[in-house]
């Protein structure tokens, strides 16, 4: 349906003598708006959801007032509050980099949505290097974080930025190595190919070790507890974003939740069969069930992340490094080797 629409748009533009470039630009804008809308709504939901889950874990209620039913409008109210707040730039800050840093982080988080396969045909760009695109772009976040920490002119921010750089570098490697077996099994970096390869069996079954290492590294990648040392509240106050307020802070905040979604989506695509799942009620279209299963699996993984955050204590910097280099990486490499040997033996 979408392809037909686009096709008609091109033919129309040809008849009206509009250059195809304009149509392409128009399509880009439409897609960008859809992504931003989806990210905003999804982030708002996730923030509210996390607050509710954490509250119930801790024998509380969480937001109950704003909007009536279980405080559903809390995130909207918070968003409005953050937008209306004064934008403070500290005197010691490097103004340009200070302003750029949240944009780098947020833009990176948004760009990653391009390769998320929500359902058959529901992917912005089915790149032939999909997984590689994710891995390379997701590590760009750290550039923004280091920019933020360094330009704030605050010692706590600087420490947070240094920690973040160390952390992302250490966990990038196990993340890549643990996703390699999946690529070997699927024989492609393309997201749709990986999902197609899981027709018989989800990759989590043969690759449970890879899934666990991937998920652990992904937690570190998104700076979530127990790996949230770049922003460790009790040590560094708020780490790299301690000097940010208002909408700039909101951008970091949204990027964190947006990244949670992406990383879970990638995990679902690579290990949990992507959009595959049974049609529970027959008369709804196939695409609906694809999106339904994809979102259900993704939100389940996000739930696990939230659950872990509110149960565990924070690791220390050196323990984090040890875990990354001395535990996760050897396990991931061993798994990679075993996968290769088994694949050769089984032909």
């Amino acid at each position, binding site marked *: 349906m979408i392809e037909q629409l686009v096709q008609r748009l091109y033919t129309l533009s040809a008849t009206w003598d509009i250059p195809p470039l304009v149509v392409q630009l128009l399509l880009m804008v439409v897609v960008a708006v859809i992504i931003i809308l989806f990210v905003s709504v999804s982030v708002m939901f996730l923030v509210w959801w996390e607050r509710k889950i*954490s509250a119930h*874990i*801790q*024998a*509380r209620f969480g937001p109950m007032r704003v909007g009536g039913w279980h405080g559903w409008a809390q995130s909207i109210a918070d968003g409005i509050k953050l937008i209306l707040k004064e934008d403070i730039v500290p005197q010691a800050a490097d103004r340009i980099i200070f302003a750029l840093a949240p944009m780098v982080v947020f833009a990176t988080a948004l760009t990653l949505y391009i390769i998320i396969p929500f359902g058959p045909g529901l992917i912005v760009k089915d790149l032939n290097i999909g997984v590689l695109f994710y891995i390379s772009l997701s590590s760009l976040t750290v550039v923004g974080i280091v920019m933020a920490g360094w330009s704030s002119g605050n*010692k*706590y921010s600087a*420490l947070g930025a*240094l*920690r973040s750089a160390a952390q992302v570098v250490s966990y990038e490697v196990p993340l890549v190595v643990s996703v390699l077996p999946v690529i070997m099994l699927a024989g492609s970096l393309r997201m749709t190919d990986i999902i197609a390869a899981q027709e018989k069996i989800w990759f989590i079954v043969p690759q449970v070790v890879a899934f666990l290492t991937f998920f652990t590294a992904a937690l570190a990648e998104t700076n979530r*507890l*127990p790996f*949230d*040392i770049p922003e*460790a*509240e*009790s*040590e*560094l*106050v708020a780490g790299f974003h301690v000097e940010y307020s208002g909408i700039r802070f909101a951008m970091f905040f949204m990027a964190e939740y947006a990244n949670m979604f992406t990383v879970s989506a990638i995990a679902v695509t690579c290990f949990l069969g992507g959009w595959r799942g049974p049609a529970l009620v027959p008369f709804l279209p196939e695409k609906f069930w694809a999106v339904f299963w994809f979102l259900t699996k993704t939100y389940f993984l996000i739930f696990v992340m939230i659950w872990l955050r*509110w*149960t*565990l*204590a*924070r*690791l*220390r*910097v*050196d*323990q984090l490094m040890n875990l990354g280099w001395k535990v996760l990486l050897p396990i991931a490499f061993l798994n990679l080797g075993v996968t290769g040997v088994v694949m050769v033996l089984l032909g």
Partner: protein
Amino acid sequence: MAETVQAPVEERTKDRMEEMYVNMGPQHPSTHGVLRLLLKLDGEVVLECTPYIGYLHRCHEKIGENRTYTQVIPYTDRLDYLASMYNNWGYVLAVERLFGGDIKIPERAEYIRLILGELQRIASHLIWLGTFGLDLGNFTIFMYCFREREMILDLFESVSGQRLNYSFYRIGGVALDLPDSFVSDCKAFLEWFKPRLPEYDAITTDNIIWQKRTQGLGILPKDIALSCAASGPMLRASGIKWDLRREDPYGIYNRFEFDIPVGENGDVWDRFWVRRREMEESVKIVEQALEQLPPGEVMGKVPKKLAPPPGDLYSRVESPRGELGFYLVSDGSTKPYRYKVRSPAFVNLSTLPSIAPGHLVADMVAILGSIDIVLGEVDR
């Protein structure tokens, strides 16, 4: 060739990061109030740690010298505001001792003092465990601990009408008798509380991250503990069995059976574990006391004009934080001539500069948390 033995300065410092000074506090989420720590950092490693105190100083002792003996009681509430009952107790005990046995405290009042004091110890340790959890990044234990502390505060409210600053102990007894429902309410609370401790263990003691974040850190050796005059759980965690409830009994502690938990290494873990077990022991004491609680008066006979005979006296009790001492000099008037508080948190904090160096900033927070300071008491 007899060249220079030492490499030039640039060579030696090439691989070292620049040293950096960080002011941790007085506004910092983990200094438990307005404490300022001046940290000298090499990267994230603490080279030196100097605590600066005094941000909450309010001339407690001088005010005390200008008030009558009774009027000082409400000020003692504000010393260690997480253990007001115990401060009251320590102070009134000192004044009663200053009278040299002329004031007789009724049996029932002694029991009430002990029950409330031990409940206060549980409440104080709960706050400690919760905020220590926050320091380590575990927010959930904080909420759990506050849930149970809230119940203790409800009990205190039913007794005294206050939730934080009770001023409940009087020279010669306590202000009011217990309400009728107190014994059953308190038993119900203890029944609720006992299964909660294993629940805490599930997310703290048994959790490997929690263990890794506490074991082997901030070791306070016996000799430093003694030379700094540390007391309370801080001292006991270093392996010295010293509890004033046993060593220098006051009230009616010698009638009850309880253990004194002692640590081995004096690390953060031991301090956590000592306090965790102390809560169990306090529950035992309260249970025994509730069983024996006698009927009768709650206020002994005290002279209308409270003017102790001239003399001086140092009296100490085992507050949740350690040895809480009151030194009083009487010149025979109704006001203390000299009034001095020996606060355990202040003394325990003085061990920090000797145990902090060499740790990371993250551990610094854990070590400071494990000392269990209350700035109201440190600064007075």
